[in-house]
């Protein structure tokens, strides 16, 4: 992620809830001078065809992301725990509702 260029509006990340019952999903980014205008621009850029019922915008600089270099060690703890998945357990086929 790049730092802000002098005189350039800050970068915002945009999240849209497609319809009630769904999570907000990241749809892209845009530049805006402040939070309120970021919301308005997000409406114009990302919801021209009823793509959303709710929008979140957040300054890109406010996001902390995991480093791609640390990907393996970061996610390693979940890699070897197959017993966390239902398919790990053998249940006779004739046992109902399992």
């Amino acid at each position, binding site marked *: 992620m790049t730092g802000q260029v002098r005189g350039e509006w800050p970068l915002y990340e945009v999240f849209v809830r497609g319809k009630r019952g769904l999570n907000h999903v990241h749809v892209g980014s845009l530049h805006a001078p402040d939070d309120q*205008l970021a919301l308005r621009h997000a409406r114009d850029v990302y919801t021209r065809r009823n793509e959303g019922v709710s929008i979140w915008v957040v300054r890109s600089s406010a996001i902390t992301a995991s480093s791609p270099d640390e990907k393996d060690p970061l996610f390693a703890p979940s890699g070897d725990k197959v017993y966390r998945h239902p398919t790990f357990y053998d249940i006779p086929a004739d046992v109902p509702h399992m």
Partner: protein
Amino acid sequence: MPAVAEPELEPGAEAQLETQLEAQFEATIGRKDRIEPRDWMPEAYRRTLVRQVAQHAHSEIIGMQPEGAWIGRAPSLRRKAILLAKVQDEAGHGLYLYSAAETLGVSRQELTEMLISGRQKYSSIFNYPTLSYADMGTIGWLVDGAAICNQVPLCRTSFGPYGRAMIRICKEESFHQRQGYELLMTMMRGTDEQRAMVQESVDRFWWPSLMMFGPPDDESPNTARSMAWGVKTHTNDELRQRFVDMTVPQAKALGVTLPDPGLVWNEERGAHDFGQPDWDEFWEVVKGNGPCNAQRVAHRKKAWDDGAWVREAALAFAAGDCRDTSGDTSGDTSGETSNETRTV
């Protein structure tokens, strides 16, 4: 590019690390997995993508001009509303693509400056003038039709943000093509004069539309590498052929003649044979000598320059330098920022 501080390495170790990173990158491409912005990538891959995505973004933004010029002259409220929506979409498409380019570490301001100074290009099709209202239909049908042929395969391009932008764009592009074809159908059902307008427009736009796919494969030196990287998935000539084959039955249904005497069905190939556009003209337009190059860039520069005070005022307002707490003025400000992309 990654924000992580590089640890100090001995020269040999650094080269070894680079080889390892390159192998990981190639493996990701090999699995047809996507490259994401913070992944390591070869500098040439990054440069190729910046060039291609920026050129694509600039095309959308410059592409607002030939059609924007007709909004005030469209013959009905229905046609004005459609054209306005289409031009607004082009602005949106430009913004999706600029966002994708920015994830490669280039700033929006740099991209705009490279467009205005002519260091980055946009599609040569937008350097042709829109002389009649029928051109609004022809652009939708042929120019957007060609764009769709180019863009659908790009939804699976190897760089994640570019592919995601293309998916959004392709969803919206279908409206563009259909409204254009419908406009032409309406004119073809009209008077002889209107039918002649449609034919004249198709005659002017056919060859430039074929040029949109870029030079023939044997003159496109970057194609092989772009395909190896999964940036492109089809060659220029493959896509051009696909476009011609799709368009011929549409022209027939419309009742217009495509201006190529060499256009015939080739039973053996199961495809149409067709003539080559004037490639000398293509290179002239790319070099900046097309009918509207200077006008298009001058217009974009004027919009950028005229909008400077709005960008600065909005930043000053955001910083609280002149915040007026008596009322909500954000609505007004929003109206003014949109002037930056207004094209008349």
